[in-house]
């Protein structure tokens, strides 16, 4: 805790400095730090209120342990190396599932977006599959793929498939038909059409799909790890819930949150770089 408040004060000070600078030099030298300060303000505020509420006994400790208690559980799990083991396997599952599901989703989205015939044949089926909940199909996955890694990874893939599929599909359908005319006149091959026209034009949407798919992969982890598993962050959470070890549950939640945010930031970093040609509103 003292740690977090420390961060807050430091960055706030730096932010003030950078505002001063920007007033004189017209361009902030340290926009990154002031971003960070703004981004951290809300979470840090929540954590402080929460800790205080816990310390004054306003909330039940078994159900909502204080941040400091969570920190202790965190340290303990790190010390024993358990956390790392769980995390490693979950990361592997989420990423593999994301790669398979997201990759197929992208391809399917491109295929369907490209041709309205393909759309008519495949899209209705995909749209039906999209709203089938993971929890309901677990038995089928067990039947077909067992409850080993394969099954889990496929369940994650299923979740990661759709956001990329829908976004890639709509990205293509959003490409300006004027540019398509240019591509036709210049006689782009199908491949060139994809790489030089469609992918770049649909890129904002595809990257958005990427972010949503990555998120979906993380979210699917819990359902997947419910299924005959004894490792992984999802398992850690569900196992801890059995004995009401709420601090451990929160450690799991925090890991999900942090890694969700981290993978999201990564994609957005690439987004910034890949979309530098854009001339759009920047807020």
């Amino acid at each position, binding site marked *: 805790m003292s740690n977090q408040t420390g961060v807050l004060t430091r960055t706030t000070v730096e932010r003030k400095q950078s505002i001063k600078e920007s007033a004189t030099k017209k361009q902030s030298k340290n926009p990154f730090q002031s971003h960070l300060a703004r981004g951290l303000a809300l979470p840090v505020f929540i954590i402080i209120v929460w800790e205080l509420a816990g310390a004054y006994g306003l909330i039940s400790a078994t159900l909502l342990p204080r941040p400091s208690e969570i920190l202790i559980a965190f340290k303990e799990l790190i010390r024993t190396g358990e956390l790392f083991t769980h995390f490693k396997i979950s990361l592997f599952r989420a990423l593999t599932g994301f790669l398979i599901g997201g990759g197929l989703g992208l391809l399917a989205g491109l295929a369907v977006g490209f041709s309205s015939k393909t759309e008519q044949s495949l899209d209705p089926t995909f749209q039906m599959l999209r709203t089938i909940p993971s929890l309901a199909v677990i038995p089928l996955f067990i039947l077909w793929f067992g409850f080993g890694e394969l099954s889990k990874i496929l369940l994650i893939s299923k979740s990661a498939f759709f956001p990329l599929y829908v976004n890639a599909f709509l990205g293509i359908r959003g490409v300006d038909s004027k540019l398509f005319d240019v591509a036709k006149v210049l006689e782009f091959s199908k491949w*060139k059409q994809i790489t030089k026209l469609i992918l770049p034009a649909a890129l904002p949407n595809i990257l958005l799909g990427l972010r949503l798919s990555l998120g979906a992969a993380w979210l699917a982890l819990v359902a997947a790890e419910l299924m005959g598993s004894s490792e992984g962050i999802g398992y850690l959470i569900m196992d801890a819930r059995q004995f009401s070890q709420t601090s451990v549950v929160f450690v799991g939640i925090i890991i999900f949150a942090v890694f969700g945010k981290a993978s999201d930031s990564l994609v957005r970093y690439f987004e910034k770089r890949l979309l530098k040609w854009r001339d759009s509103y920047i807020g």
Partner: protein
Amino acid sequence: MTLLQISKLDRSFETGKGVTKALEQIDLNVNQGEFITVIGPSGCGKSTLLKIIAGLDTSHEGSVLLDNQKVSGPSIDKGFIFQEPRLFPWLTVEKNIAANLPVKENATQGRVRELINLVRLEGFENAYPKELSGGMAQRVSIARALLRNPKVLLLDEPFGALDAFTRSHMQEVLLDIWQKNRTTMIFVTHDIDEAIYLASRVVIMNPRPGTIREVIPIELNHPRRKTDPAFQEIRQRVLSEFEKVEEFEKTAAVR
């Protein structure tokens, strides 16, 4: 030799509010190596005509034959400079010009550099379209069409956004290419002087619906001079024809 045969061409657009007749009963034959310029009031269907010839618009009635083949889609022989620059915003100037050819190849690279010099964009090879001025973007799109040495070049107001001098420079460039390569040119413009200066025949169009009013052959030798009395005479003829179009438009039923 007749390269392009257009006969009984009709094109109308269905919109939410009714039908717009863009082209009606267009008949036009163009010979290999001719330089046709098209003038006509705004909205009379010039761009639509070009798009049909290019094969980008196939929802028309009547026949359009190129080399005695029905035009059913764009092809390698036809270059098109659109009315707007239509650059790929994610490609730099250089890559926009090279378009679907590999920029890295030496032959392409040399040709791209040559064209960048021709349209006077040295130093902007690596600029993105959003960093260009209107006229600069238009010149990139001209260079892009020229790169492929098409047999037929369709130009839709290509010099509209250029200043007087860049414009006359580009006119010379175009005439040069036309004479060297015997490229067939179909060139839409709003500048009557330009139309006469460049053309072997000037096509004057009527609006609503777009029809061909008059085709005026220009039998002056190149290089032409705008102050030349023969030039001025033709100019007068085109102008008076155009004035009639103007009157026609005023009296025409509104849509």
